[in-house]
Structure formats: C-alpha cells, structure tokens
C-alpha cells in the first residue's frame, strides 16, 4: 500500500484515511460527515472541467473539490 492524496486515487479505487491536513472548521465538517482516520473512502466520479469529486465514505456520498480532497492523505489499495 502506498500513501497518496485522496485527489490522486483513481475512480473506484479504495483508500484508507491516514491523516487530514484540513483547517479547523473544515476538518470538523469532514469529521461530521464521516471522514475519520482509519475510515475507507472511494472516489466515484469527477465532474466535467476539473469539477468536484463524488466520494463515498461509509454509507454517505459527498461532493468535494479536488484541492480540498488533496488535504486528505490515504493509504491506496492496489
């Protein structure tokens, strides 16, 4: 397993959250929606023109922008 940013995972590739660089209010929001160390995340698709990612974490689907996703470090599964 290698450590990458969530924004670098391929669509459909699973990762396990290792660390989050996010600043406080955003970090809290991430946690509230289920982003926590050790949780599995999986990008599902990306919108056109470099738009946001759809990411599944636990039973929840969220959208977040690529640059925000880059704040989340994950262990990529092969």
């Amino acid at each position: 397993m290698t450590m990458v940013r969530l924004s670098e995972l391929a669509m459909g590739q699973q990762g396990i959250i290792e660390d989050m660089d996010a600043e406080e209010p955003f970090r809290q929001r991430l946690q509230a929606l289920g982003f926590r160390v050790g949780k599995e995340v999986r990008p599902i698709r990306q919108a056109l023109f470099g738009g946001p990612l759809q990411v599944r974490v636990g039973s929840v689907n969220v959208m977040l922008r690529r640059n925000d996703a880059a704040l989340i470090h994950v262990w990529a599964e092969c």
Partner: protein
Amino acid sequence: MLKRIALLGMPNTGKSTFFNRLTGASARIGNWPGVTVDLLSAKILLGAEMVEVVDLPGLYDLHGFAEDEQVVRRFLQNNPVDLLCLILNATQIDQQLPLTLQLCRLGLPAVAVLNMADEAERLGIRFDTEALAAGLGCPVCHVSAKYGQGFPETRDTLRRVLSQSPSTDLQALRADFAADDALIAEAEKLLARSVTIPPVLEYGLTERLDRIVLHPLFGIPLFLLALFLLFQAVYTLGGPLQDGMTWLLTEFRDLALAPLQAILPGWLYGLLVEGLYDGLGTVASFVPIIVLFFLGMALVEDSGYLSRIAFLMDALMAKLGLDGRGFVMLLMGFGCNVPALMGTRVMRSRGLRLLTMLIIPFSLCSARLQVFVFLTTALFSPAQAPVVLFALYVLSFLTAFATALLFKNRIGAAAEPLLIELPPYRLPTLGQVALRAWREVYHFLSRASRFIIAGVVMIWLLTHLPPSAAVGGPDTLAGLFGGWLEPLLRPIGIDQRMAVVLLFGFVAKEIVLGAMAVVYGLEGDALAQLMTQQMDWVQAFSFMLFTLLYTPCLSTVATLRGESRSLAFTGFSIAWSLALAWLVSLVFYQGARLLGF
C-alpha cells in the same frame, strides 16, 4: 408552564417530515431569544398535556461553526427545553451516532428517533434497540416519518419521558458545552456492539440514476432538458386552467358585480370593481400556474436532485468566483428571491456570500413569471410563447453570470472548502409535495394580496385624480409621473402608461398585472386584446427584459439589507440592476428597430 420539545438532527434525516407528521399543519414561525432566524414551532396535545414542539435547524456537529449550528447552540443556551427529540437517519447511523451521543450528553432528557425505518429494513440493517438505548442512555424509537409507521409508540415515549423530566437548568447546560472528542471513540465502540451493517449498502437505484444524471457529458444537457420540460409542462397544463379561472372571474363580474353599478355611487363602483376586483382578478387568474409551478419545484427539491446540480455546475461557477451552491440558490430564486438570499447563510466567506447575493435578484421569480406568462400569451403565438419564456430564463442566468464575472474581483469572493452530501434519491409522497406547494402558494397569496390591495388602490387613485382630468389621461397624477419618466423610458420603447406600471412594479411584481388592469381599465382577455394594440412584440419584449432585470421587489431589498448588513451593498445592488435593466432593454429595443422589426 408549557413544556417544550426540541427536534434536533442532521440535515436530511427527515426532521421536517417528522415535524409535519407529529404536529399536523398547525405550525407557525416565531422569534426566539438568542437567535436571529425564525424557527417553526407548533403546540400539540400529548396525552392530556399541551406541549410545544420546536424544529431546530439541521446540524452536523454541536460544536460546528456554521451559522445553523450556532443557532442551535444559542437556542439551547437561552430557551429552556424539557426534552430533546433526536432524529436520526437509520440508514446512516454509523455517521450520525457521534452527534447523537454528543446531544445525549447534554444532560437533558432525550428520546432518539430512528427515522427511515422503511429504508433501513429494506437495506437489511438490524438494530439491537436495547443495547442502543442503554448505550445512549435514552429510549430509542423506530419510525418512518414519510409513511407514518411507529408514531403512536413515539408519542407515547415522548409523553412518558416528558412527564418524568425535571425542569432544566440552563446554567449547567452552558457549562456542559465542553470538548468531547472521546465521544467519537465511544460511538465507534457502541456501533460495533449494537448495529450490524451489511458490508455493501445496496443503493442500487441511486447509483444507476447517478450514472446518468451525473454523467460527465450528458449531465448538464440533461438538466437543461429537465428544466425545459418542467416549464413546458407547467405552461401546457396551466394554460387551460388559467382560461377557466379567467372565465369564472369574468362571469362573476358580469353576473354579480355589474348590477351594483346601478346602486353604488360611480366613484365607489370604480374603485371597488374596476380597481380592486379587476386588479385582484387579473392576478388571481394566475394562481393555477403558480400552484403547478410550486408543485414542480417541491418535487425537484425533495428528490435530492438539487445537490447533484451543485455537483454538475460547480466547475463552471468556480470560474465566476462562486460555487455550486450559488447555482442552486439561483434555482431556488425561481420560486422567490427572499428565501434564496437567506439560503446564502451557509457560506462563511463574506465575499462569496455577497457575490452570490448580488446575482440572486436576477433569478426569474414566480411573481415575474406571471407577468411574462400574461404578455407572452397575449403577444406571441402558442408555439412561440414557451420559447420566449424559456429565453427569458436563459437571459436571467446569463445576466446573473455576467454580473458575477464583472464583480468577482472587486468583491473579492474567496473560495471556501465545499463539502455537500449527495443524499439517495427519494420520491416524495403526494402529501409531502402538496404540503410544500400549499405553504408556498399560501405565502404567495398572502404577500400578493397585501401588496396588491394597497398597490391597486393607489394606482386607481393616481389614474383618477384630480377628478377634473380625463381618467388615465396625461393630466392625472399618474400621467404626471409617467411624463417625468418618459424621456428615460422612451428609448427602450416603454410609453407613459407602462412607465407608471413599472414604477409600481418596484414595490412588488405581483402588482404589475393588477396595475396594468387598472391603468387601462380592463381585465383578463380584454386587457390582453388591448395590449396587442398598445405595443408590438419588440416593445413587449423590451418591457419584459426591464421587468426581469430591475429590482425584484421591496422585500428583496429589505432582505438584501438585512442579510448583508450593509447599506452601501444594498444600494449598489439596486443601482446595478436598474442600470443593467435599462442598458439591456436599450440594446435590444434599438437593435431590433435597426434591424427593421
């Protein structure tokens, strides 16, 4: 004292649905100490006792920094609450348990309501209710707010816990808002102990729909198509209904009101029938279309599609200095600009919020819609009319986008992190849609009647005073005002009479049609007939452009002022919309004339 139950939960857990079912339709909006926003509350009979139920905004975290979350905290700190009713989405309990524990630890009596029992069952999620209740330290109920299962038991539990609840100590509660990271670990443990979730949740339908709806290439065209079909449907279905309504109103006038002419003094008959009745009647004939329109909006809003639209449009909006939520708020503005403006509260960056508030007034609201439906029906063929209407919607978007592009650097809209849940698609029940639509229509009607009655009477007076002048002529007060405005409006093809109409449209667009009826002394079909003689399609379209772009109404101005807390910004917004309206109409009108139309 009246005991108080507060409903709490994350957004999209079905809290409003639960509230509606628990309280019936008796809810009213009220002010509360410590919070600046209005909250919905209702008094209901629980057992033998009247209790008050308050619906608090959805929150993700009690210690979050979003405005909604602070509202909840300030509410709890300032208003004694006897029971917390915690609404959870049972299908996402893994995500929601930490917040629930947080809330349970506030030391207030609580009941946890696991909503969406129907979906949880379908997904094969099983609960050990006793373990869950023991871990949370409060009773647990299972309900389906949408379909009504589990309500008698829930009421019973609420009543039981309430009857045992001691009075609350606000002091202790305030002290209780302390750090609580350890709870999260506890939530994980409790989850492992008491809930079995199958490894892969089968949101099959949502997945398959998303594959189409969020398709990289087809997503946006599909959205535009859906929008067009929605308006086409409203228009096609609404047209005949509107004709029926007009016929009814005219019949009533001829049969019941016309005889009054012999009894009442001339001026009173004029004011009551030609002023009030014609003015109100012209607006009333649009009620069917407005109802249909809000039914459509309610359907879209409740289905979960809006957050998908935010997803699709975010990249484009980012180029304009906005984000996907801004686009969704433009869509919400189709109903009424006021709630859309208030919706910008979720944005934390002030620049981003101001920029979004600057473009929302260009969103073609339902009040403007009726003016356009009336004029397009009068001046264009049945085949052209919906296309013209759609063109106005497109223009409304384009001017909003252009405005954002022009001012994004000046206002300095800084991007902020964006995290939006994409909930599974849900088809609302007929009852839900009807309730939503009814609330909107009620709001529309109460607003319309308030403004219209005053506006119509004012206009009738202006067009009839002084008594010596010919009715509606250049010597009346209205003629005077129109005369002043004429030099400004002639270059865009708007004559003296229509100028007066626009003057009143500044107060609210609901008045525009009523004002036209009074100014021309006609209503319904006769008015439409006359319009075709008074102006050609170029003038009519120029008038519609101006109506679309200049300040929507005084309520919007007041909301802009209240939400931005800046007089300068509000003034700027009004000035910009007036200037843009005039320029766009000028370019269109003179351009069309140059081309020989």
